[in-house]
């Protein structure tokens, strides 16, 4: 068994501390249209994670130097609220949130039909209200629903989930306790319909076999979350469930 110290995160039957099996994700609830003044919005409650996203636009991009002549720019911000973690976070951007904002923008640019809105800007604001490991994935998922809620044309919706390794065993969707002892983390953003990847990061240590299991666990989580997204959009737009 690998890992730090003697903390046992998985029992002999492969059951995790919160009762999940290795391939299970935490309970997910999604609601769309939760910010009345936004053009589109969504909240994702993923385990204890609570992440909201708002979309404004398309609107005129200013200053002009940020305009693209052939497409819209996606102006994405990921931020953690000061009360989102056990120890308060001082407000303001840091290197971590800038990097996550950048890779999130690039993931979403891959599916949004930005060429329909030359010289304009679409603002995507992601705010983490409560953090419990996996906030970047919840943020990308929330942003996808908010973009759809805003009626922004997209080729596909992105769902993001991470798998990792604890006590030498690959598991899907690490919670906070597991993440504290995690030996690897593989977050992926996958298009619901095409199965294409638009977001990929990894850190830690995975053997080729472990990597394949983590990859498969992530892929297996996409369809169930997609269902929940579609359901949220139907509810907020007056359709039947």
């Amino acid at each position, binding site marked *: 068994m690998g890992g730090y110290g003697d903390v046992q995160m998985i029992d002999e039957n492969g059951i995790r501390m919160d009762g999940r099996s290795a391939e299970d994700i935490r309970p997910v609830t999604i609601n769309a249209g939760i*910010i009345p003044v936004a053009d589109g919005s969504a909240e994702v409650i993923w385990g204890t994670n609570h992440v*909201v996203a708002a979309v*404004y636009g398309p609107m005129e991009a200013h200053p002009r130097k940020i305009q693209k002549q052939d497409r819209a720019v996606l102006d994405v911000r990921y931020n953690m609220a*000061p*009360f989102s973690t056990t120890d*308060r976070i001082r*407000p303001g951007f840091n290197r971590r949130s800038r990097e996550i904002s950048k890779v999130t923008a690039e993931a979403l640019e891959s599916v949004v039909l930005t060429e329909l809105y030359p010289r304009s800007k679409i603002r995507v604001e*992601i*705010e983490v209200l409560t953090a419990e490991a996996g906030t970047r994935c919840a943020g990308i998922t929330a942003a996808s629903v908010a973009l759809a809620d805003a009626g922004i044309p997209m080729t596909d919706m992105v769902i993001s989930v991470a798998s990792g390794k604890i006590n030498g065993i690959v598991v899907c969707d690490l919670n906070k306790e597991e993440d504290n002892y995690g030996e690897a983390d593989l977050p992926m953003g996958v298009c619901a319909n095409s199965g294409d990847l638009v977001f990929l990061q990894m850190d830690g240590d995975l053997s080729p076999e472990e990597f394949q299991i983590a990859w498969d666990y992530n892929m297996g989580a996409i369809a169930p979350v997609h269902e929940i997204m579609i359901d949220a959009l139907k509810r907020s737009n007056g359709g039947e469930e």
Partner: protein
Amino acid sequence: MSAPPVPELLRAHLSKLAENDERLDGRERFQGREVIVETGVLARAEGSARVQMGDTIVLAGVKFQIMTPYPDRPTSGGFMTSAEVRPVSGVHWEAGPPSPEAIELGRVVDRGIRESGCIDMEDLCILPGEKAWQVILDVFALSDDGNLFDAFATAAMAALRTAVIPGERFDVGEDRPLPVSKTPMMCSYHRVGGRFVYDAVRREEIGGAERIHITLGDDNHVHSLQKGLKGAFTAAEFEEIMQHARSRCAELRDLVNN
């Protein structure tokens, strides 16, 4: 906040409505929107609340830190308010360091609570001269359709009243509720169409002039006042507003205390 283009049409419309003593959403001059208060909404905060007034939605979260008391007050803890109006809350709020408007919001909310003395700073002392609790109140706008001031102030008191000092996590005794002895409440008024209205929506703010914020304590004592934006008001106008604030603050206080 970016300056909206001078909304002359909106201004004219609001003046027209004011002639018949009407408002954009059909409310009376001193009629507030329904206020919905929920507590315990943020899992990582030691006290929290969500307040909704129409399409305005805000959150407040209370966190605690251990601080070294100030040399001139070795037996006192600390209290700090920070207002975050992130661009998630409206197209008119932009990214970047806190704007003067956001800083004013935080400071006015802070003053009303601090000056009411509702938090006993001496009670926050752990070890005189060495250790004390610092109460950090973060107010956060989720959706700005006007009157963030009152929404923040209401959420702040609701969050503080449910806050638990995390003694066990910091290894300085047991967890215990933060003692909050009073409930100061804020009422805000905007000049719209020539006269003052209570609880303005965003479009009234854009098409309005100066604003006045009043924080009153349990016994109707005044704890903070703030006049914002360009404009001049008469003593008679202020008297009328103050009359209304006394009754409305009492209603809001009942809402938060229960």
